[in-house]
Every structure is written in structure tokens, then in C-alpha cells.
């Protein structure tokens, strides 16, 4: 392929990615040339700026027609864009968290933290919009490997080390499993482009050894369930979340999880929509199993969370449970899969980042990750306490918060398609979750806490406020988001291969 061919692509579409890449490179260079003992805090601001630029570009792209470059390996459709926006916003806020985070004095100087976040974000974005197994895999790994390092970035910290190692081992195995599945898909179709694959999969010759298809299906699903920390690949989450520095935990529990969902949605819907299973469409055949997985995830997450005392661990389990919730639309295959998933992820983004912001604030001030660190918070930081209450209420899915509307949407999609049992499991586990969520509330409001007033730094405060406003706003007037999604993104173009 020649240079002019290369130039013929409309690279402009890639503007958001480029701005991220460039920022990443800039960060690394600056980090390289900065004197050693100088704090890298400014880098965070730079990164933030880069992300904001990316956001601007992305927003400008809203409503554009489907486009693709590099021979359809990388496509720009509303689906990708919609989720990219979430990643960008989330990461932007995580940068603000990172700005505040000082672990042991050493690593405040380290710049890689910031540009690794960048690359991880880039990986997520690639996952969102790649239309080819290869790019998709590369994106996935870009995200994974960066986050392995991020998890372990506190070199001197036992927990951090261990977290990183556990993450790397599990991640490696997950990758291997996923890839193994992919290799079968490739083998059966001889294609790596998703749309080409979906056409090939209906080919009778493929149908002959449909078991391989199903095997591939299962393996890819299990492999990817690692990213979204859903059963059966969920157990790493608590340890890794606990061990990683809080901003990273936030990143893992929000961005990386969202990326996982994006990948699953795109991969499975595009590839397998037409494919035969053992009775009828494979997605329909698989429904009960995925439903079971989702149910198990909710149960495990919520039930085990009851006994957690370490706040980060508790929220790890809670995020496992939420993974279960988000799987429900995917199971139900209703007409609003994307809308509900997207909205729920949006809500999840806001409330979870908000909650982690407060957690980072409290744990770093109290030098303790035990959930009693929250005791009497409403005396020491009333406003923060109030905002935490909002996040918790939203996570518990109680009204006037985005979390409720999100759950509502999920219920609509599941009950509309008659998945009564799954819905019941979800509602029951939700009620269970009240208990541990409100345990934190009890700590904040009922228990007497030691110590005097504490106030969050600007970065944290901004994040908290944004998240609070968002949570309430989308809870009280969700149409804001829903209409934006409805008008801005014509999700059906996910299925129209670009010529």
C-alpha cells in the first residue's frame, strides 16, 4: 500500500484518538526531560487538557455518518462514539482524582502514571471502535497492559505489587482464553473483519462444525467477562481493587469495565447476530446461560459485599454486582439494549467515580481503608457526607438519582422481554445491597467520629460536585441524556457495514 493510499483516509475522524496519543507522547517526553525531583502534578493538568480536547473533537463528531479507515479495521459509528464519550469523561475525572492522590511521597514524582492512563484510555477507545479482531485485540491489550502497570505503580507497596501480579496473571489467562476463542472464529471464517465474519458465519460450511462456533462463543465470553469482572471471572477484582491506588481502582472499575461492555456488545452483536446456535439463533440459545451468569454475578457481588469491612473491597464487590446488572439488557436482547446499557453506564460512571472520590478523600485523610473511617463524616465534612449519601442512594438504585432511572431502564428491557426470573433476582439482590450500602450511611450519619473538620482539595471537590449534579440531574430529568442519545446516535448503524 502506498503513501497516497495511506493519506487518502479521512484521518480527521480519528481526531479524538490522535489528541490522546499526542498528549500521551508529549507527557512521556516532558516526563523524560523534567528534572527528577520535580512533582509531576502539572503533567496531570496537561493530560486533562488533552482529554478535554479529545472530548471536544468527539462531541463535534456527534451525528456524523458512519465512517471507517484502514480498510474497515477501524470504524466510526454512533455506537463507538457514544461509548468513547463516556470513557473520555470518566478518564478526565480520574485525572482530577489523580491530581489529588499522594501515596507515599516517592511516587508523586512519577509521570508514567499519567501517560499510562492515557494509553489505557486509548486502548479503551480502540476497543470501542475497532471493527477487526486484530485491532480489537490490540486495543484490548493496550488497555490491559497499561492497567497492569497502573495497578502496580506503587512499587514499594506490598498490596500494590500483589494486586498487579494477580491482575497480570488473571489478565494473561483471560487474554489467552479470549484469543483462543477468536482463533476458532478466524479459522471458521478466514476473516478478521467483524462484518465479514458475520457474513461468513451463516455459511453452511461453517454450520457443519457449529460446535466450534459455540466453543468460540463461550470462550470469548468467559475471557471477556474478565474485563467486566463478571462471574466466573470476577474473583480477581476485590484483591486488585483493594491493592491498586484509588484512582487506578476507579479507572478499573469504571473505564476498563465500560470498555469491556462496549467490546462485548459490539463483538457479539455484530458477529453472532445471524449465526445459528444449536436450536435457533445462537444469541437466543445462549440467553439462559448468560442470564445465569448475570444472576450469579449479582448474587455473588451483593451477598459477599455484606461482610466486607475494607471500603475499597466492598465497592469492588458492588462493582461486580453492577456488572451483573449491566449484563441484563445484553441478555434480554430487547430493542433498548444499547440505550439502557449506555444510560446505566453513564449513571454508573457518575455515581461510582463520585463514590471513589469520596473514598479516596476519606481513606487518605484517615490513613485507613476500614469502612469505620467514615464514622461521623457528616460532622467532619457535612457536604462531602451528603454527596456520598447521594452516590450511595444512587448505587442502591433509589429514586431521584440516575442510578434509579438506569435500573428502571434495565428492568424495562428485561421485563419487556419476559425475563421475569432474572429481574426478580436483580431486584432481590438490590434489596440485599441496601444493607451494605446503608452500613456506610450508618457510619457516616449515626456513628460518632473522632477528629475535626476536613475539606477535600479542589480536584476532588470538583469531581464530587460534578458527579453529584450529574447523578441528581439525570435522576430527576433523565430525558436530558436519553434524548441526547436518541437524537445524537443512530445505534442501528452499528449493524450496517461501511462499504
Amino acid at each position, binding site marked *: 500500500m502506498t503513501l497516497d493510499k495511506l493519506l487518502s483516509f479521512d484521518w480527521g475522524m480519528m481526531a479524538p484518538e490522535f489528541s490522546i496519543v499526542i498528549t500521551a507522547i508529549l507527557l512521556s517526553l516532558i516526563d523524560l526531560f523534567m528534572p527528577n525531583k520535580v512533582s509531576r502534578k502539572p503533567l496531570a493538568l496537561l493530560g486533562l487538557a488533552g482529554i478535554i480536547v479529545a472530548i471536544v473533537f468527539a462531541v463535534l463528531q456527534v451525528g456524523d455518518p458512519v465512517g471507517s479507515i484502514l480498510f474497515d479495521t477501524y470504524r466510526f459509528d454512533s455506537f463507538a462514539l457514544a461509548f468513547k464519550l463516556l470513557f473520555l469523561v470518566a478518564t478526565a475525572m480520574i485525572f482530577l482524582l489523580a491530581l489529588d492522590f499522594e501515596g507515599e511521597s516517592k511516587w508523586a514524582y512519577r509521570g508514567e502514571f499519567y501517560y499510562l492512563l492515557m494509553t489505557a484510555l486509548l486502548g479503551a477507545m480502540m476497543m470501542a471502535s475497532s471493527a477487526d479482531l486484530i485491532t480489537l485485540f490490540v486495543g484490548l491489550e493496550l488497555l490491559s497492559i497499561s492497567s497492569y502497570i497502573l495497578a502496580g505503580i506503587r512499587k514499594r507497596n506490598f498490596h500494590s505489587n500483589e494486586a498487579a501480579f494477580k491482575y497480570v496473571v488473571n489478565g494473561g489467562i483471560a487474554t489467552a482464553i479470549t484469543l483462543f476463542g477468536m482463533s476458532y472464529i478466524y479459522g471458521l471464517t478466514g476473516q478478521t473483519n467483524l462484518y465479514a465474519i458475520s457474513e461468513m458465519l451463516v455459511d453452511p460450511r461453517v454450520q457443519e462444525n457449529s460446535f466450534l462456533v459455540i466453543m468460540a462463543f463461550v470462550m470469548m465470553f468467559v475471557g471477556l467477562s474478565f474485563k467486566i469482572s463478571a462471574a466466573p471471572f470476577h474473583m480477581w477484582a476485590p484483591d486488585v481493587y483493594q491493592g491498586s491506588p484509588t484512582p487506578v481502582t476507579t479507572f478499573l472499575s469504571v473505564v476498563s469495565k465500560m470498555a469491556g461492555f462496549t467490546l462485548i456488545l459490539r463483538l457479539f452483536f455484530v458477529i453472532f447476530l445471524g449465526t445459528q446456535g444449536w436450536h435457533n439463533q445462537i444469541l437466543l440459545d445462549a440467553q439462559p446461560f448468560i442470564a445465569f451468569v448475570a444472576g450469579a454475578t449479582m448474587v455473588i457481588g451483593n451477598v459477599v459485599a455484606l461482610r466486607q469491612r475494607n471500603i475499597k473491597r466492598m465497592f469492588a464487590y458492588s462493582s461486580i454486582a453492577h456488572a451483573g446488572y449491566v449484563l441484563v439488557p445484553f441478555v434480554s436482547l430487547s430493542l433498548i439494549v444499547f440505550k439502557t446499557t449506555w444510560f446505566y453506564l453513564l449513571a454508573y460512571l457518575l455515581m461510582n467515580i463520585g463514590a471513589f472520590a469520596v473514598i479516596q478523600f476519606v481513606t487518605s485523610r484517615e490513613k485507613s481503608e476500614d469502612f469505620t473511617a467514615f464514622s461521623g463524616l457528616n460532622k467532619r465534612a457535612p457536604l462531602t457526607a451528603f454527596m456520598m449519601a447521594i452516590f450511595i442512594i444512587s448505587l442502591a438504585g*433509589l429514586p431521584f438519582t440516575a442510578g434509579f432511572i438506569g435500573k*428502571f431502564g434495565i*428492568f*424495562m428491557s428485561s421485563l*419487556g422481554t419476559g425475563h421475569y426470573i432474572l429481574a426478580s433476582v436483580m*431486584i432481590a439482590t438490590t434489596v440485599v445491597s441496601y444493607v451494605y450500602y446503608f452500613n456506610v450511611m450508618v457510619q457516616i*450519619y449515626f456513628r460518632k467520629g473522632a477528629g475535626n473538620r476536613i475539606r477535600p482539595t479542589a480536584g476532588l471537590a470538583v469531581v464530587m460536585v460534578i458527579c453529584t449534579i450529574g447523578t441528581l440531574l439525570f435522576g430527576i430529568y433523565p430525558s436530558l441524556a436519553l434524548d441526547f442519545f436518541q437524537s445524537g446516535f443512530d445505534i442501528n448503524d452499528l449493524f450496517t457495514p461501511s462499504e
Partner: protein
Amino acid sequence: MESILLSALVFSPLVGILVLAFMPNTEERLLKTVGLLATLLPLAFAIITYVGFTPGNVNIQFVEQYRWIDFQIKGLPNGGDFTINYDLGVNGLTVVLLLLTAIVSTLAAAASVWIKEHWKGYFMLFLLLEIGMLGVFASQNLLLFFIFFEITLIPTFFLIGKWGYIDKEKAAYSFLVYNGLGSAILLIVFIILYMKTGTMNYTGLSSFLHQPPEVLEQMYIGDEFRFGLLIALLVALGVKLPIVPLHTWMLKVHVQAPPSIVMIHSGILLKIGAYGVYQFGIGFFPEEFRQIAFWIALLGVINLLYGAFIAFVQVDFKRVLAYSSVSHMGIVLIGLASLNGAGMQGAMFQVVSHGLISALLFFLVGLIYERTGTSLITHLGGMAKVMPITAGFLLVGGLASLGLPGMSGFVSEFMAFLGLFKEMPVLAAVGTLGIILTAVYILRAVLGMTFGETKESLLQLKEPRFVEWLPALILTALIVLIGVYPAVLSDILQLTINAMMAGKGAVV
């Protein structure tokens, strides 16, 4: 169409919340005064609504409708966009309930003088709770109802858990979990209905569900399906009502929560269950309801007797009242199950009258506890000597709740039984046993506290000041008013009930 009266009514407590938000945490008297004044605003609006309501008109009045949430799902049974409106409105029943809510809230706020600490937070939550309760009755669609319903959950949890007695947190949790489960089931039912019919508006739903069965059959809303939904509804609301055996949480709450909150709780919150059964159970599934009416009546009688029996051997007056609430809610079920004018109206009367009576009794509990530090019948006794007026009110409250003619309790009890006797005389006859038992346990408890030799511990007690028993006076006045001239309620209620009876549900 475009009156914002109801929105004003529902959200008027916000004013108080905002004012309180900017007040110092320590000014006890000031905070209490503001808290009390704040409840007067909704009261005023409620009165305006009540006065402005035209009883002669069956339609939903003061309607407000705005597009709110829009999921825009194409190609579902109703084929349309799934829009959920923000819509409020009142009918003859809800306007009464709104007024009741406002009144009881104000009096409960007055009863909050006995709150010892954190007045600011207390009153903010209190007002939030009031928003929830008002919203529940004012809303005209399921989602809105549910949202307000859950709104009541959170403040109540805190009010019980922070300002209650020794075992408060346990009580708060069991409140949370039970009601959480209840509302969860409720939510599922609501959403199923929504997905099947594409609307959440009461009127829309009832008119949709009142189509001939075969039509519904085509929309996959078969008989079993409807029955399933109805049962689920009854279970969900049965937690709130409460129906035996789903009642245990409510005992804990009654015993542990501060009196002012119990006034609200047993005065209003329990009534939401009754209202739900009426509005959804009967309004949406009249035919199915009719078919299981016997079982509901049976449950009602069980509630009535079960509560009465157990109340007879309680030593803590609060527990007596708790079980008596169980028993009295049985009468609501009885009335509803009879499905005729008399019964339904009896049930609704019971909703109102028990609201007032239990508010009165728990107010007195607070009054007594404040002075004696106990509510154990065995520790009290001969109060009539030292606190004649309080004792008098206690006696009045007791007589009212055992259904003495001339007080609201009698009217409701009488109507409910009148209704039931028409439909199922034998069951009703069994139920009347409850009338005797009620007299038995109420007198045992009340006389145990007021009559007999005065305990030494009580001898130095003094009669509360006038302002302190003013709320009791107001409640008594209302109870007697309804008892002596029930037309004040029935005139405004009956059209709505007749409409419901006609199977139309509420008509816009």
C-alpha cells in the same frame, strides 16, 4: 390543566428544607419553630386544594401533565413511544388523604418538641418525608407514585435509626429491608404493566385493563397473568399495610421510632398500603379482585383477630398500639374485600380515622414517655390522679379506637362490617368477635395505665401545659367531628368510590 397547585403542595416542604439548611445547628427553639412553621405551608396548600375541590365532579382534578421521561422504543405492543409523564391530580379520596397527611404532619412536627438532638437534620428529613407522602397521594402515574413511595423510605430509615430508642438501628434496618422488598415487587409489577400497556397513567391503565378479556388475551395479558400481577401487588402492599404475617417489621418500628415519627408512620405511611390496594388492586383488576375477594376478606379477619389477640397480652403500650394497628388494618381489608359502596367507604373511613386515632394515641405515648420515661403498662397506673387531662385524652383515644359511636372509629368499623355482612355474613359474624376483643385489650391497656392506685413513681408528675396537649385536642375534635357528622367525608368520597365501583376506576 395548567394549575400548579398540586406541585406547589407536594414540594412546598422544600421551602422549609432550604431555610433549615442555612440555619445554625444549635438553635433548638428556633429550629423547632421553623420546622413546625414549615409544615404549615403544605397544610395551607392542602386546605386550599380541599376547598377548591368540587365534590360533585368525578373527574381527576387539578391535573398537571408534562412530558418527563421518554425511552422511545419503537415496535412494542403499544407500538408507540414509551413516554412517562409527570402527572399529578386528585380525586375525592386522595384530596382527603392529602389533607390528612398535611394535618398529621403538622401535629407530628408539633410532637417533635420531644426530640433531643440534631434538630436541624431531623426536621429536614421530616419535611423530605412529608414530600414523599404528599407525592404518593398526589401522583397520577405509577412511576411517580413509586418514586415518592421510595422517597419516604430513606428519611424514615434515618428518622428511626438516629432518633429512635435503644434498638433503633435494628428497627431501621428491618424497616428498610421489608419495605425495600415490598417496593421492589411493586416496581416489577409496575414495569410489567408499563411494558404491556405502554402507559403508566392510572386512568390510562385502568381503561386499558378494563378491555374485554379476549382483547387482553391477544396482548398476552391472560387471566393467570392478571392474577399473578394482582397477587404480587397484594404482597407488595401487604408489607406496607401490613398483612399478617408480613407485619413484624412494623412492630419494631412502632416500638423503637420516636413518637412523632410513629404518628406519621402509623398515621400515614401504613395508609399508603391501603390506598395502593384500592387504587391498583381494585382499580386495575376489579374482576380478579372480586374473584379472590373472599380470601382477602379472610386475611382481613385474620388480621383483625390476630392483632387483637396478641395486643391483649402486651405489656408495652406501644406494642399494644402496634398490634392494634395490625388489627385495625384488617378492617380496611374487610371493607375493600366487600366491594360494595358501604364496605369501600368503610375502608376509606377507616384509613382516615385510624390515621387520626393512632396519631392521637402515639402523641399521648410521647407525652407520657416524656414525663415518665416509660410506656410499660405495668410501670404506669393511676395516672388519672396526677394527670387527669392526659388520662382523659388517653381514654378518649382508647374509646375511639375501640369503635365507640360518636367517634370516627365507629363509622368506619360499622360501614366495613355493613358491607361485609352483605357479601359474606358468616365471615363477618366471625369478624365481629374482633369488636369485643378490641374493647377487651384497649380497656385493659388504657385502664391499666390510668385507673388503679397511683404508682409512687408517678406521684410528682404534673399536668402538661395547654399548648402541649393542643394537638391532642385538635385530633380529638376531628375524630369526634367525623364520628358525629360523617357526611363531611362521605360527601366528598362517595362519588369517587361509586366511580370505582362502576369499574371505571377514576375517570378523567
